[in-house]
């Protein structure tokens, strides 16, 4: 219990609104129980993630707190385009910030339109109502000019916190690569200034290998899901990728490799979390930030199993590695540029790579159907619904379009659509 007191002291130090924060923890805890603990036959190694989530605002925050007390710097991010490697190469820690729950919307709607994507409203809501210890532990928050909503939201967030915005190109032509590379160099300088450390070829190479190792572990888990019966649920797999954004890198990598070992054993023994006859679904679309588990939960409670995610909280996180074969600082920056610009986000035009990935993944994972998911008011992904549907129609793969938000209002309508889709495929 003295541990609990330590946390409350720490939370108070961070300026959190304790009663509101308690309410948030209770809500997330209860959601976690309903979503994860109702599952059967989960791999044992998933216990690591259950533990991490039970301490989501406790132990990890303490680690960040102690790190900063020793002079370490923490950098909060919202997007996969922000290179964790550069942050780590300067000795700082990178934490992905939560943006997956409907919270503080009344406060948010005073400064932002009601018709804004839930992800943006969520992170602003967390900040405005002072319930997120991660953002409060961030010495710097890095935004990016991905979509219009985020671009303008960072202006408002910048009034409340130390924010640096990276400028992402809109296309992937030669001059865009050169531009993005320059952005990485400028960002590197910013992190050096923040930490007082210099990024060297050695420190950058080491960081690249570390983060690649994390990706490799997640790749193993993703590959295991191609098996039938599926050895791990979509819910647990999604959680793994979400936690990847903020957990201690070497510890997380090791724990995920242990999980992957167990999944590979399960495959040999034909052990699954759902019968082999369960419908297999691939989800594609906008990222699902912590603690957004809504769609996976509905699909899997309807008796199907989610076998993959073509999203930033999924394949786009770990599918491609940074080239480790190079050594000079210039080559390492080239390698980072190439890998990061290879992310098939709808913010880019054109985005044909995403359609190819979806069709390929549907085949590799033996998906019976694809669900194309977008948050309401997400202009880019909602526009891409047409391209996704055309690509899947041409490939003969059934697809269901879902536009939703974080609320529980549309659960009935969504479950009817999902169940009808499962009955159909």
């Amino acid at each position: 219990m003295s541990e609990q007191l330590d946390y409350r002291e720490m939370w108070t130090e961070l300026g959190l609104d304790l009663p509101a924060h308690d309410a948030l923890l209770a809500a997330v805890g209860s959601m976690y129980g309903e979503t994860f603990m109702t599952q059967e036959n989960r791999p044992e190694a998933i216990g690591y993630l259950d533990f991490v989530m039970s301490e989501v605002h406790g132990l990890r925050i303490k680690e960040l707190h102690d790190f900063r007390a020793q002079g370490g710097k923490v950098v909060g991010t919202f997007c996969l385009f922000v290179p964790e490697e550069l942050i780590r190469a300067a000795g700082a820690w990178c934490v992905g910030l939560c943006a997956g729950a409907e919270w503080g919307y009344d406060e948010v709607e005073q400064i932002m339109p009601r018709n804004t994507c839930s992800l943006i409203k969520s992170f602003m809501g967390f900040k405005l109502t002072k319930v997120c210890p991660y953002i409060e532990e961030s010495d710097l928050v890095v935004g990016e000019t991905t979509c219009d909503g985020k671009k303008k939201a960072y202006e408002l967030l910048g009034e409340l916190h130390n924010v640096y915005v990276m400028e992402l190109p809109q296309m992937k032509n030669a001059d865009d690569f050169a531009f993005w590379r320059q952005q990485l160099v400028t960002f590197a300088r910013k992190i050096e200034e923040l930490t007082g450390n210099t990024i060297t070829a050695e420190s950058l190479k080491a960081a690249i290998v570390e983060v690649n190792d994390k990706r490799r572990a997640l790749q193993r888990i993703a590959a295991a899901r191609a098996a039938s019966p599926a050895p791990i649920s979509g819910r647990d797999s999604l959680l793994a990728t979400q936690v990847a954004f903020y957990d201690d890198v070497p510890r997380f990598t090791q724990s995920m490799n242990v999980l992957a070992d167990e999944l590979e054993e399960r495959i040999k023994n034909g052990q699954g979390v759902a019968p082999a006859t369960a419908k297999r679904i691939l989800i594609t679309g906008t990222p699902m930030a912590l603690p957004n588990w809504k769609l996976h939960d509905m699909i899997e409670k309807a008796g199907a199993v989610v076998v993959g995610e073509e999203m930033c909280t999924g394949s786009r996180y770990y599918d491609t590695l940074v080239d480790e074969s190079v050594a000079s600082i210039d080559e390492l920056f080239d390698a980072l540029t190439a890998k990061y610009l290879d992310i098939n986000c709808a913010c880019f035009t054109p985005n044909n790579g995403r359609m190819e990935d979806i069709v390929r993944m549907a085949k590799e994972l033996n998906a019976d159907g694809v669900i194309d998911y977008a948050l309401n008011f997400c202009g880019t992904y909602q526009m891409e619904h047409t391209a996704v549907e055309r690509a899947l129609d041409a490939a003969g793969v059934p697809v269901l379009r879902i536009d939703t938000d974080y609320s529980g209002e549309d659960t009935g309508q969504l479950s009817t659509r999902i169940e009808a889709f499962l009955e159909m495929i």
Partner: protein
Amino acid sequence: MTVSLGIDIGSRSVDAVWLNDEGVIIDSLILDSGFDPYEVANSCVDSSTWDVLTVTGYGRRLAAQSWDARAVTEITAYGKGARAVYPEAGCVLDIGGQDTKVIILDSSGHVSDFDMNDKCAAGTGKFLEVMAQSLGYSLGEFGAAARDAQSSVAISSMCAVFAESEVVGLLHKGANREAVARGIHESIVKRTVAVLTRMRASGPLVFGGGVAQNTCVASLVKDRYQDEVVVPAQPQILGALGAALLGLESY
């Protein structure tokens, strides 16, 4: 003799169909959902004999759990029911009290695609109800008045709330009541046909749900859909019928 009972628990009505083992309708009931649709459905379940029970509609899951019945979505149930009343059906249109569905059937009668509008009342029975009231018609009179109108006034709002204001505005400017009624019906059908086009609906269309009984909507859909349009004798019970048929198959 095996009796299969199919129940469709909807927002406005609870429909029940009893089939014998040859798939012939022994009995059917359409009841008002009231404020406790589950209880209404329960009364059908308790007061009759049946061997297999299948439930559809928005109340299906809770109901299926309590009665040890199978739950199927309205999409699958409507597809099945439509194909039974018209074996060549290529698509199904259901305009209900609060939602609209388009179901595409493949050549073997299986659902191959579907679209639901259940996020707002635009283009549903609810919209017609609100509009009828603001024009001073009963629901029954409304369709007839629209059908017999000599002219039409375009309504631009599809939102039931905004359209009501628009209609009041038009009446104050002296617009003819029947023409406004006609305009409302035309706007529903225009929206419906847009969905059918987007879904590439083809082949005979079975038009079910409560709104299929509105003679103006039915006749406008027939005019504007490129293929045959069939309104079954009992359009409201297609879901319950489909559910009962599915029950029979699985028994």
